[in-house]
Structures are given as C-alpha cells and as structure tokens.
C-alpha cells in the first residue's frame, strides 16, 4: 500500500452527490455499508439543484387513468424503442413509491385541491404526470435527500475531484483524486463504487449544463475498462435562452410549454402545426428542437436567432406563481417581463441519454464492483429522454445501485490498491505544472466546444463527423502539451486540464457512435440518413477500450416480452 497520500476507506464509495448519488448513499447506508460520497462542488450544488419542471411518476393524482403501463409506453415511444425495456418497466413501476418516499422525508410538493401531490403536463407524457414544486423541483429534491443523508451520517468529501478509478485483478478497488481547495491528492479504498457523476454538456458551448458536466464518470469508467453505450444520443433541449450572450443556453423549463406556452416564429406563425400538429408545443424534445432549428435556418428566426415562446396570455399572477424562477430569470438577466411579452428561445445542449452500460436490476456496469446511476448511466431513455424522467430515474436507479453496491461489498474483502496506478495518476495530474508549452486549457476547451457545436450538433452528416474525429485527435495531441501556472491551491485552470481529458474522451465516443449510426432516431438526426432503419432500431452502439484505443461494436437490444410488447404495439416506427 502506498502511504504517501491521505487515504480513506469505505465499503461503498459514491462519486457524485446529485440526486442519484445521494439516493444511492442513503440506501447503501441503510443496508449496513459504510459509505463515503465525493463531489466536485459543495454539497447541495450538484446539477440536480437546477432541475425545474418536475419528476415523472404515474401517481394518477390528477388524471386517474394514468398507470405504470402508460408511463412505460410513453417512455419507450419517446426513446424510439431503443430503451432497455426492463429499465423502462422498473422505472415506471417504482417511480411513484420513490416520490412518496421523498414526501415522507419532508419534501413539500405543490398540492391538488384534495390535498395530494399535484401533477402537471409535460412533452411526450400522455397524462398529467409531473410532480413538482413550482419550477424549482430539483432544489426540493436535493435538499430533502441531502438532509436525510447527513442525518444518517454519510461521510461527505466535498470539492474533491476523482481523476482515476483504481482496480485490482479485474475488479474495482478504489479511486484517486485531488482536493480542489489545496490541490493535495487523496486515495479512497472501496469494495464497490457507484458512479453518479451526471452528464457531458460542457463539451458544447451552448448548454444548460454547469462546469461540472465534463463527462468524468463516463471517462473514468471507460478508462477502467467498463463499456459505454448509445453515446450518439445527446439531447438538445428546444428552449434555452438566446440573448443576451452571457446567458446563451440557460434553460427555459419545458414547464412553460406545459403550462400553455406557445411557440411562434418571427412572422407570428405557430410553426409547430407543421411539425407535429397533434401534440404541438408538447411534442417530444427532439422534434421541437429540430423545428426551432429549422425555422431559424430557413430565415424565420427572431432577431437573435431563436423562436418566440409566449406565456403572456395567462394571468400574470398565475405565471409568477407557477414559473417564479423563469419570471425572475428573464426579468433580471434579459430585461424581459414574461407576463407581458414573449421570450426568445433556441436549442441548447442539455442531457446525455448515453453513458455507462448497466444491468437493469442492479445498475452494475460491466466492470465488477462498479455501478452507475443517473445521467451517467445509459439505457432507460433510449434515443430521447422525456422531461421529468430524469429526476425519477435518479431515485429509482440511485436506490437500486445503492442496494446492489452494498450487497456486493458484503461479499468482498478489501482489494489492494496498486501503488503503480496511483503513481501514474499523480504524474498525470501534475504534468501541466511541469510543462512550459503555453497550451492554455481555456483555449483548448473553446476549440473543442466549437468543434462539437459545428460538427456534432442537432443535425449531423458523414463528412462533418469525419472531420470532427480528425479535429478531436488533434485536440488530444494539444492536450498532451497543456501547461498551467500558479499553485495547486484552488486553481481552476489546472482543474480544467483534468476535466478536458474527460471531455475529449466522451466527445470522441459521441462522434464515433454518431458516425456509425446510419439512420435518424430520436435525438440523433443524420441529414444523409433521414429515416429510421429497422436494423439500427434493434441495436445499441457499444464503446470499449481495446489495446489502448477506443473501439466500437454493435449489440442487439434485448428482446421485449410479449405482454409489454402489447402495451406499445402499433407504435413501432412512429414519429420520427
């Protein structure tokens, strides 16, 4: 054992303190494991805090006809049947209990007139299904989980970034990271690890995601030998702010449309009539994002290159009560009063459907001892996620990952941590201080974002994707020359060097998968292959590391049993 570093030991180590990580921690602790949870930011600041519109669960409080079968069907349809059907089934069945549990832990949702949890409409959901707290549902959820976890006595390691997973004879043995505050290194020994690190949006310049979303979890899993899946499916949310420049990409919650918001182009046309006359503004995200993109591209966009989204026909008091943070966000940041006039909106990189390939029941990755839940994991959402299905995903699979990681840990002895792996991780982390090559991480980041935005965006085409691969390879070369000044004390430039490594890995994976999938499905739109392809509809793209290189193969999607097939029959191939 290497005793050069501060070391902590737990049965279960959870990387990520958003909804998925906290829910996993609570459950693992409840199963008798000693649990540590690590996060890059302060506790309570993870992305989950930003979630607005709500959490999807077929509670049938507002629409009595709703049940898990409909939720399951909606999720599969939204995901264009590429979802792991078993995950979609578990998710739909367990979400209501997970929501009730939150309430029992102190969460306060908006109420129906008869005192139950209120639910609102959202894109792609057949019924009013999203339990919510105004437009700050994520804050309610993360506080509730955080308070519960803290009371139970979880050890929290805040502002600590993991840069490597450690393994021993083919199974997980721990993780290596640094404290952001002082730059010192730390080693965690663990019998099992749950990744709950969220998404990858920071590889694009126009995004609703925070600095944390650099794809660390996927890159860590990949480097350690686990498989990634469906990396081509990156969700562009149709409504991000487009003006002023500083807030470009900031999310405008789908709840605006859920509450009756209308989309128009600069000529005042309600253009969704041309793209999805049935569901209009509440069509799925992929459809609405492409519609806005197309309107702008064809010259019908607003002054700042977006569409108008208008909720001002509703009473001002109602808008302020149902969408308080949107009201303030526009008033304070864009000088727009949304109770009086329309917002300008356009697509923004928002959510990663792909990620670590996991087993439906246990959230186990393909590497023994490594589990993954939440946005970092793939499978539930298929080719396109429905709004509200992420928060429920975090709870359902966070809990399952917690159980499975604790049970796994019970059967294992502590694996040994290999000091060679730790030394390599240390050398890698310190390298940017030792170079004087003047390759600035901020510039490299900007160049990567530019590449992904222009070549691997909403609409994709062979030659762009080929060219993106070439550029990413060149950026990887440049990343070998990154250099940084200053000390190891809270040094964001240095932190970005580590984040860039992850972003480059996931960007390459996204591009490789996008190039391979020669069809359009859900969030993945190929100009050169605009239709569904029945063969591609039955296979997932799988990324793994072979001989130090990224390799891609296809694997058939699991076959759905008859009784579930019946629930979605007649829907196959519908709604490109």
């Amino acid at each position: 054992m290497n005793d050069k570093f501060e070391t902590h030991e737990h049965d279960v180590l959870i990387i990520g303190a958003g909804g998925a990580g906290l829910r996993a921690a609570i459950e693992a602790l409840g199963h008798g494991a000693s649990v540590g949870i690590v996060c890059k930011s302060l506790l309570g600041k993870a992305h989950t805090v930003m979630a607005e519109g709500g959490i999807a669960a077929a509670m049938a409080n507002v629409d009595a006809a709703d049940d898990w079968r409909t939720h399951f069907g909606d999720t599969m349809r939204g995901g264009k049947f590429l979802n792991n059907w078993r995950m979609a089934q578990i998710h739909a069945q367990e979400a209501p209990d997970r929501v009730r549990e939150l309430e029992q832990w102190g969460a306060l949702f908006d109420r129906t007139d008869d005192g139950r949890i209120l639910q609102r409409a959202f894109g792609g959901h057949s019924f009013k299904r999203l339990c919510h707290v105004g437009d700050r549902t994520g804050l309610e959820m993360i506080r509730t989980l955080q308070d519960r976890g803290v009371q139970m006595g979880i050890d929290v390691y805040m502002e600590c970034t993991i840069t490597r997973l450690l393994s021993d004879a083919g199974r997980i043995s721990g993780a290596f990271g640094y404290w952001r505050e002082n730059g010192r290194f730390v080693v965690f020994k663990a019998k099992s690890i749950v990744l709950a690190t969220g998404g990858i949006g920071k590889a694009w310049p126009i995004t609703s995601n925070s600095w944390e979303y650099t794809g660390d979890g996927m890159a860590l899993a990949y480097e350690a030998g686990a498989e990634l899946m469906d990396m081509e499916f990156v969700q562009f949310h149709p409504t991000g702010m487009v003006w002023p420049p500083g807030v470009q990409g900031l999310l405008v919650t789908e709840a605006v449309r859920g509450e009756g918001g209308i989309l128009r182009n600069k000529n005042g046309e309600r253009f969704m009539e041309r793209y999805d006359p049935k569901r209009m503004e509440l069509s799925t995200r992929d459809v609405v994002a492409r519609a806005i993109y197309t309107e702008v591209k064809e010259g019908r966009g607003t002054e700042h290159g977006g569409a108008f989204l208008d909720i001002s026909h509703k009473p001002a008091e109602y808008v302020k009560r149902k969408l308080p943070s949107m009201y303030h966000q526009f008033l304070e940041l864009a000088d727009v009063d949304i109770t009086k006039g329309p917002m300008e909106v356009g697509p923004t990189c928002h959510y990663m459907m792909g990620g670590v390939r996991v087993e439906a029941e246990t959230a186990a990755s393909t590497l023994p001892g490594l589990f993954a839940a939440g946005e970092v994991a793939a499978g539930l959402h298929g080719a396109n996620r429905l709004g509200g299905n992420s928060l429920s995903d975090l709870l359902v699979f966070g809990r399952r990952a917690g159980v499975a990681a604790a049970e796994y840990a019970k059967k294992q002895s502590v694996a040994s941590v290999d000091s060679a792996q730790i030394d390599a991780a240390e050398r890698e982390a310190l390298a940017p201080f030792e170079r004087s090559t003047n390759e600035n991480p901020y510039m490299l980041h900007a160049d990567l974002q530019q590449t992904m935005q222009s070549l691997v965006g909403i609409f994709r085409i062979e030659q762009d994707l080929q060219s993106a691969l070439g550029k990413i390879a060149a950026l990887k070369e440049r990343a070998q020359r990154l250099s940084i000044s200053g000390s190891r004390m809270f040094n964001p430039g240095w932190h970005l060097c580590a984040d860039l490594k992850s972003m480059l890995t996931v960007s390459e994976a996204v591009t490789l998968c996008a190039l391979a999938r020669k069809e359009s499905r859900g969030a993945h739109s190929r100009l050169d292959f605009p239709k569904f392809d029945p063969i591609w509809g039955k296979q997932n793209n799988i990324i793994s590391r072979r001989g130090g290189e990224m390799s891609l193969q296809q694997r058939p999607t699991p076959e759905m049993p008859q009784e579930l097939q019946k629930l979605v029959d007649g829907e196959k191939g519908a709604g490109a």
Partner: protein
Amino acid sequence: MPNVTLRIFRGDRESGKTADYEIPLTPGMVVLDALHYVQKYQAADLAVRWNCKAGKCGSCSAEVNGRPRLTCKTRMDSLPQDKPITILPMKSFPVIKDLVTDVSWNYKVNKKIPAFQPRPGTDWKMWQKDVDRVQEFRKCIECFLCQNVCHVLRDHDKHEEFGGPRFFVRIAGLEMHPLDGVSRTALLKKELGLGLCNITKCCTEVCPEEIHITNNAIIPLKERVVDEFYDPVLRLVRKIRGA
C-alpha cells in the same frame, strides 16, 4: 461597448491584495461573466466558485462594490462604470483563495438540526395554503449571503453560539411543515442563540430568493420559543393543529 476595470481580491488565508483587470463589456454581462473573462484571458488561476450561472445553486456569492451579491445575477450595467468595480470574498468566512471562502462552518451548524419527522398516523394530505408558507423557506439556495451580513457573525464573530439566519430559515421550514412532529425550540434557544438576533433585518435585505427571513421565519420562531418555555399548552395546541 466600453472597457471596465475589475478590482479583484487576490490572495489566500495569510495574505493578499486587490489586483486590477480591464475587460470589455458585452450586452447583458453579469459579474460572473466578467470573472470568467479574466480567467480565460488574464489569470487562469483566479479562484471563483460557481455552478448554475442562473441564480439557482447559491455558489457564486461575493461582495460587489461592498454589497453582498450573487455574482451570476449582478448585471455589470447596474454598476457605475467610470470607476473600478471591486469584487471581494464574503467577509464573515475565512478566505481560501481569491473569491473562494471556507463555508464549512455552515455545514457543521446544519448537522445539529433534527430532520423532518412525521407525526404518527399521518395520512399525507396537505393543503396548498399550508404548504405555501413553508415553501417560502424551502426556496433557500444556501448562498450564505444572509450569514455573511448578520452582525452577530460578521462583527461579533459568535460562530460558536449562533446558528445564523440561514438556519433559522431552515428550522422554520421544518417547524411549520404541516406534518412535522419534532420540536426544535430548545435547540434554537440553547444552541443556536436565536435570542442574539435583534431583528435588524439585514439578512432579509440581501436574500436573493426574497425570503422574508425576519418577519416570516425569525419572529414566529422567537414566539414559539417563548410559547414553549412559558406556555407549553399553547405550543401543544399549535403543534396538533399543524400551525
């Protein structure tokens, strides 16, 4: 658009001084955008905390021209541009580096607060009007700006005896939860020093979530403490009614 000068604190626990950076203004720019500009082009190691850049996470607190603010919600065009804009770390917490402070004390105080516990036999029915009142407190994004301005902490340094407005808000949210069955009044009185608050309302003024910290949280809690210690029967009635 014109250039402006930012005067930013650079330093750590031991020492530090302000340094000037000149940056070009862009339309709608907020202070956090300006800080990011400095990181990108002038000082890659400038330490700043932030996450959402949308006023939702409460990470980016600092003192801008002497006023405690969220830097992601402070528009540059709301500040005078003919003189340097000073950006200093929150004063009530120890500096780690530049604009980043050590707020771990808050997490320690938080641990002392017993979590929500439902009254036995509850049927989980709640009415919006009862929930509304508590939802106000649950809007807190833990920016700690109220803690930063409260004189009990800022000038008198009573971190050992006083929980601070943020945690009075949190406790108000638990105590007024329609179904909660625990009492936290003894904790308020004995450990969290509610009595030290003399209702100056400085906390309310800086709260970016516009929580009426003093009127809606602190004063009712003070009344509860009085009831509990001097009129336990009234207290019991309140608890049963869920008020």
